[in-house]
């Protein structure tokens, strides 16, 4: 198997999967996050359970699901929860170890914008909004963000609008945060990390062949770099084999 042919999706899924070792419950949307969790179930975290925003727990899908509410996630699953139970008892109840989120913009504190580009009341682009992202951010022990494109528009110095705030913004609002907020940002250039309140995202690893300067140039703020910068280990043959043969054989999301 030629690892030179590794796609960006395979890379991101494999790297994200490794971060799930030791985790029990993951809140994830369809696409890269579910690929990462599915791979983790076959490798570092066999017992990890995905909870879907639609209310499905313990899914055993017969086909690759197309949405978080796909009928194949429901048939044969272990439990289906109402929205008040899913959001109230599971998410706000503090049952989620890792939440996966995406966003149009993320800033250095791990705050997310998924509402608008431009001014909120006269936006250049109206984006979908929070959905459950605000709740995932506020209540998960930690949050992983996977960004397909690492560029200054997606990682700006200032968000156009903060939809889903991390713990530092919550604190400034006078409310004690519960989780660490974003602890990992996995991009096509490398991995940014922070531990929790008071910490900025720092570059902790780059993909092979990517330089620190490349990453800093692609980041909208003056990106700090960890003292011990690592190089991301590319997907192993075992990881690629599982992704390609078992997790997404039709390459629906491994594009």
């Amino acid at each position, binding site marked *: 198997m030629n690892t030179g042919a590794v796609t960006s999706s395979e890379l991101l899924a494999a790297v994200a999967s490794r971060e799930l070792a030791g985790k029990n419950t993951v809140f994830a949307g*369809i*696409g890269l996050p579910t690929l990462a969790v599915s791979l983790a179930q076959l490798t570092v975290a066999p017992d990890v359970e995905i909870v879907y*925003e*639609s*209310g*499905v727990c313990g899914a055993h899908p017969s086909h690759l699901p*197309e*949405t*978080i*509410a*796909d*009928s194949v996630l*429901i*048939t*044969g699953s272990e439990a*289906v929860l*109402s*929205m*008040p139970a899913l*959001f*109230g008892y599971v*998410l*706000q109840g503090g049952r989620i170890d890792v939440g996966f989120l995406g966003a149009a913009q993320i800033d250095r504190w791990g*705050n997310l914008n998924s*509402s608008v580009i431009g001014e*909120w*009341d*006269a*936006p*250049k*682009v*109206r*984006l*979908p*909004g*929070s*959905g*459950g*992202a*605000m*709740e995932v951010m*506020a*209540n998960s022990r930690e949050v992983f963000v996977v960004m397909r494109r690492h560029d200054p528009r997606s990682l700006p110095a200032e968000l156009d*609008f*903060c*939809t*889903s*705030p*991390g713990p*530092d*913004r*919550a*604190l*400034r*609002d*006078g*409310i*004690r*945060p*519960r989780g660490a907020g974003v602890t990992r940002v996995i991009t096509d250039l490398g991995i940014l990390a922070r531990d929790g309140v008071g910490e900025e995202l720092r570059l902790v690893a780059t993909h092979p062949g990517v330089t620190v300067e490349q990453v800093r140039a692609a980041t909208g703020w003056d990106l700090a770099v960890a003292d011990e910068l690592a190089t991301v280990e590319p997907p192993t043959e075992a990881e690629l084999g599982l992704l390609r043969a078992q997790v997404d054989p039709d390459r629906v999301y491994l594009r």
Partner: protein
Amino acid sequence: MHKPVAEPVRRPDKTTTMREAIAAHVTDGATVALEGFTHLIPTAAGHEIIRQGRRDLTVARMTADIVTDQLIAGGCVRKLVSSFVGNSTAGSLGELRRRIETGQPEPLEYEEYSHYGMICRYLAGAQRLPFYPLRSYAGSDVPSVNPGIRKLTSPYPGPDGEPEQIYVVPPLNPDVTIIHAQRADRAGNTQIWGLTGIQAEAAYAARKVIVVVEEVVADEVVRSDPNRTVVPAHAVDAVVECPHGAHPAFAQGYYDRDGEFYRGWSHISKDPERLQRWLDEWVRGTADHAEYLAKLGAGTRQRLSVGEAWSEPVNYGRRL
């Protein structure tokens, strides 16, 4: 064997047509909640609202997707209350974006929440509470554009012994809530399986409730499994039988989601003229959902059909 004790002499029959249900309960200027989280979206009811030319509605819907875009394009909506405005994973809502981004052909008022913010509004509405507390919104810009989201101080000390603040949302009490379900009896006992979403709370929060179902079933079917009843008859005003009424969404066990339609909507809705032609042809140009379905064709219905995966029955028991 004793005689039945409280066997009612009769049960009210609330079945009606979609036309009559919408005409009776959805008035110009009303606040209308259409709920169903991806599953069981009341599309056919939305189309009938367009056909009847309702105006100035405030539409509440957590996931404002295709039917919302159609209602907006149909000229029915003055204001949208929502927590997610997108065409699922399949692209954009063209009309909604135009209204918000350009104000053309006319502006759309938008009240933005998170999903749990909407859920808590329905919870407060169903429970007739003045507010509902939640651990979201701390540090978000959303409260700055939505003054309905407020903060209060808990009367109990926080974990650190200091006063604790928390955000709250106000109740949402729609004039009418419309939901789609797999089945109900004539009196309105409504049974849903698969994703049950926020349907019960949205119904209990409302002044009037229209339930659209795939099938009106015999009382005995419902009564063989009372735990399956998500909305009891006492909370339902009208029952409308409308098979395939959630298309392009799915009804667990009845038909699957029409992914092609979702993907196609981004293209249709991107062009305002094409969108109006689509409405003219598929909604305004059809008398009712039966005509819409006939136009959709047997091939599409066949493509969306599902196989069988039956639940194992449970024994409710009977006194011997």
